[in-house]
């Protein structure tokens, strides 16, 4: 811009706060645009290193993802939010296969006569499989490490279960809404109570045996009962979801949840 540049002596005077005000103003106006003159200012290496060290402390902290930010803003504690946000990594494959299975069920519902039965069979099992994978030696490669932390045990199990149930229930509701003949909100959530009951049952059973095995047993039982009902000529296994049956499911869920709570309290 102008031919004028700082002399090294001026630069040192300025940096040491020895310049008079007018010179300082002049130097500042020049420094704003002249990089070579800026580098004339003496740099205090140890000060720079200290400054960078404390900056790096903040900068190196992992950035929070969107899920974590939302969870934290809802009022969850930072650790809980991080745990919930990290859990889906454990069951990515399950999430993918859930989408595929639900898509297949929808496909069948549209193309085969009475095809929507397939969705009735599968919707309660899908969250169950997710729960089986979310905790325990089978699904979590770091389970041995996690099991010795203060987080481990019932608390971790329930947190992970919540992290699985929310996407599972959302996906199932979405699929149910896409079923043919969905007319009322009731049609979209008829599978919800059976599904939750199965999950609660497998959690309770998980107190005595491995959680994956417990979920497997409950899931197989469910499919077997439904299969037997449809084979025995009773062509309406849909009755399992009828309003009267829903009342039974509700009672069963309440009982199982109560027993779970009792176990947790006693433990």
């Amino acid at each position, binding site marked *: 811009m102008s031919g004028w540049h700082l002399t090294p002596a001026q630069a040192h005077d300025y940096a040491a706060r020895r310049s008079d005000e007018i010179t300082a103003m*002049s130097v500042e106006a020049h420094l*704003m645009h002249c990089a070579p003159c800026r580098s004339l200012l003496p740099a205090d290496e140890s000060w720079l290193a200290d400054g960078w060290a*404390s900056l790096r402390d903040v900068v190196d902290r992992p950035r929070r993802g969107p899920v974590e930010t939302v969870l934290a803003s809802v009022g969850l504690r930072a650790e809980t939010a991080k745990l919930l946000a990290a859990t889906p990594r454990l069951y990515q494959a399950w999430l993918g296969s859930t989408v595929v299975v639900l898509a297949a069920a929808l496909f069948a519902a549209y193309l085969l006569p009475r095809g929507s039965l397939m969705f009735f069979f599968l919707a309660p099992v899908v969250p169950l499989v997710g729960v089986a994978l979310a905790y325990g030696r089978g699904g979590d490669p770091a389970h041995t490490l996690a099991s010795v932390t203060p987080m481990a045990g019932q608390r971790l199990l329930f947190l992970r279960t919540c992290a699985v149930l929310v996407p599972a229930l959302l996906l199932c509701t979405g699929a149910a809404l896409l079923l043919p003949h969905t007319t009322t909100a009731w049609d979209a959530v008829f599978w919800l109570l059976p599904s939750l009951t199965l999950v609660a049952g497998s959690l309770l059973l998980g107190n005595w045996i491995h959680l994956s095995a417990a979920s497997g047993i409950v899931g197989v039982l469910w499919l077997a009962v439904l299969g037997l009902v449809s084979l025995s000529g009773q062509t309406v296994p849909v009755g399992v979801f009828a309003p009267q049956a829903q009342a039974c499911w509700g009672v069963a869920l309440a009982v199982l949840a109560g027993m779970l709570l009792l176990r947790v309290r006693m433990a």
Partner: protein
Amino acid sequence: MKLFRRAHRRAPSYGPDSTDPVLLTAIAAGEAEALEILHRRHAPWLRARLNYRCSDHDQVDAALQETFLAVWKNAGSFTPRPGDTDAGAWLWTIAIRQLISQLRRRANRWISDIEAEPYETIGDASAEDTVLLNIEHGPLGAALHTLSPELRAAIQATVLDGLTVREAAQILQIPEGTVKTRVMRAKARLREALTS
């Protein structure tokens, strides 16, 4: 999931000799080393200049830390003027604002900090700028010498540092009205000295 995770911007290649805009693009993409280069390049002169505004070294250092943290968070908002390879003016804007909020926080800790306005580059090559670049050698230097320290400080804060009247009032610790009258009086005095 993997697809979503890799989606954020790729950092450009950069080195200790890269220009500021390149470094800031890299910082926006999450490169901590680029911030280190920028810190090494700009922290010394920013510190020297802030030291003329505030004699408390701790506060200056704290303001500088906040400045570079703000750069780390807002690097994406830097938009260089075409052909400009220097972020000095932008950094100074952030630094002086951080110093002001630092001083304000110290002064009244119980009042929650008001969020600062978004950062805009100050110091477009205005007429004032061109004159300022020649302060020492032009007639302006002599004219400034005739001003009282109070008037000079008011001119310095509003013209050279590019602060608003409100910000100038905060850093000089005088009421806004006083800043206005001092700037007005200083300009009149300078005009007189320069035209006579």
